[in-house]
């Protein structure tokens, strides 16, 4: 498992690996929103939590189709499937690698970008926590979607259609936690729901993804 994780991270940071793709997208969206909405801080402040979370979600979506597509094209997926590494472990590692290359940089960059959206000062900590808790779920759900659509040429549209509805609960609870913190309310409940979603996806989806991959590799 470690070998696969190291290989995937190494591939991501090498030329053409797509590391930073999600981060750059996130950056661009957050920088552009104040230009589009206008410079009124009173308008930006209430929408900041939602914008941050939607941007993070779309950024995670951007690199999903690469999770299995490249390995499928060059044959490594079939070779991995016949290796002693269980497919469940392989999909889990793929999700973790995707999170380290997209979710983690997003989470770390979010506080800096929150300034651009005039996010309420009280919301910075909860936002960091909510992204750290929620983005792993985005990667795991996305890995499941990628496993379902592997082998389909130009499967990106189908992948987005499958994955976006599954992303909605994460988005709702993630943005809700930040909004409540910004309004000075108790934000523990949405954070707990978010943690529950992440725990649930990591418990169930590796098995579902492995089953989908086995079907698609036939």
């Amino acid at each position, binding site marked *: 498992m470690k070998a696969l994780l190291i*290989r995937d991270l190494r591939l991501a940071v090498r030329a053409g690996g797509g590391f930073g793709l999600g981060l750059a997208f996130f950056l661009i969206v957050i920088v552009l929103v104040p230009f589009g909405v206008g410079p009124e801080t009173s308008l930006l402040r209430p929408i900041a939590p939602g914008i941050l979370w939607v941007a993070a979600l779309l950024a995670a979506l951007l690199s999903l189709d690469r999770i299995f597509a490249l390995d499928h094209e*060059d*044959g490594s997926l*079939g070779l991995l499937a016949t290796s*002693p*590494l269980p497919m469940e472990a392989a999909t889990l590692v793929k999700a973790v690698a995707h999170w380290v290359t997209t979710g983690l940089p997003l989470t770390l960059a979010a506080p800096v970008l929150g300034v651009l959206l005039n996010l309420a000062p009280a919301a910075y900590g909860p936002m960091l926590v909510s992204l750290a808790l929620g983005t792993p779920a985005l990667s795991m759900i996305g890995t499941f979607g990628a496993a379902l659509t592997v082998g389909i040429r130009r499967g990106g549209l189908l992948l987005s259609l499958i994955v976006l509805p599954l992303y909605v609960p994460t988005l709702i609870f993630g943005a809700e936690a930040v909004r409540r913190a910004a309004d000075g309310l108790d934000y523990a409940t949405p954070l707990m729901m978010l943690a529950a979603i992440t725990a649930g996806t990591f418990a169930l989806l590796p098995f579902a993804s492995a089953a989908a991959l086995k079907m698609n590799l036939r």
Partner: protein
Amino acid sequence: MELSVRNLSVARGGMPVLEGLSFDVAAGGVLVLRGPNGVGKTTLLRTLAGLQPALSGEVICPEDQAAYASHADGVKSTLTVTENLTFWAEVYGRDVPDDVYAAFDLTDLRDRQAGTLSAGQKRRLGLARLGVIGRKILFLDEPTVSLDRFSVKLFADFLAGRHLAEGGLAVIATHIDLGLDAPELDLTPFKAAPDAKFGQDEAFL
């Protein structure tokens, strides 16, 4: 170490392609699969390797000893030759033996990115994977594609001198003569009747 296939039927895309196949390969033995394009050599090898379910019949072989090599090498172009081989060795929980580079004439290419290799060199790297994973039963699908005569000889030497000599066995689909003293199995007589009907195998999930 022995591979036994009993009355095996295989399908591709739900359509049966081969049926009633039975053969044995003993330790140190090679079986060469022959047959025209599309007869089902790849499908048979994928079924033997466990990538897809058999329609009927059984494949008896020791668990966790089989390895599969397809048309595609699974070589990552942005990793170096050494990194590619080390990855596969680690997945199988082994170390890369030093002599594998010499066996596949990769010594001078160790630190090159795989993307800069020629098709034949890439193929040799893909085959070198078989030398590091230490599996005894190999299912090889056209292993010599894009290899020159010298490399084919290298590969045949690896098979005969290391793999088979150490008690391994191999089932190889190929159109060329590897220079191995091996029985050949022509798959044409086992072609499935076109009207044979089988349901989808849900149990595989």
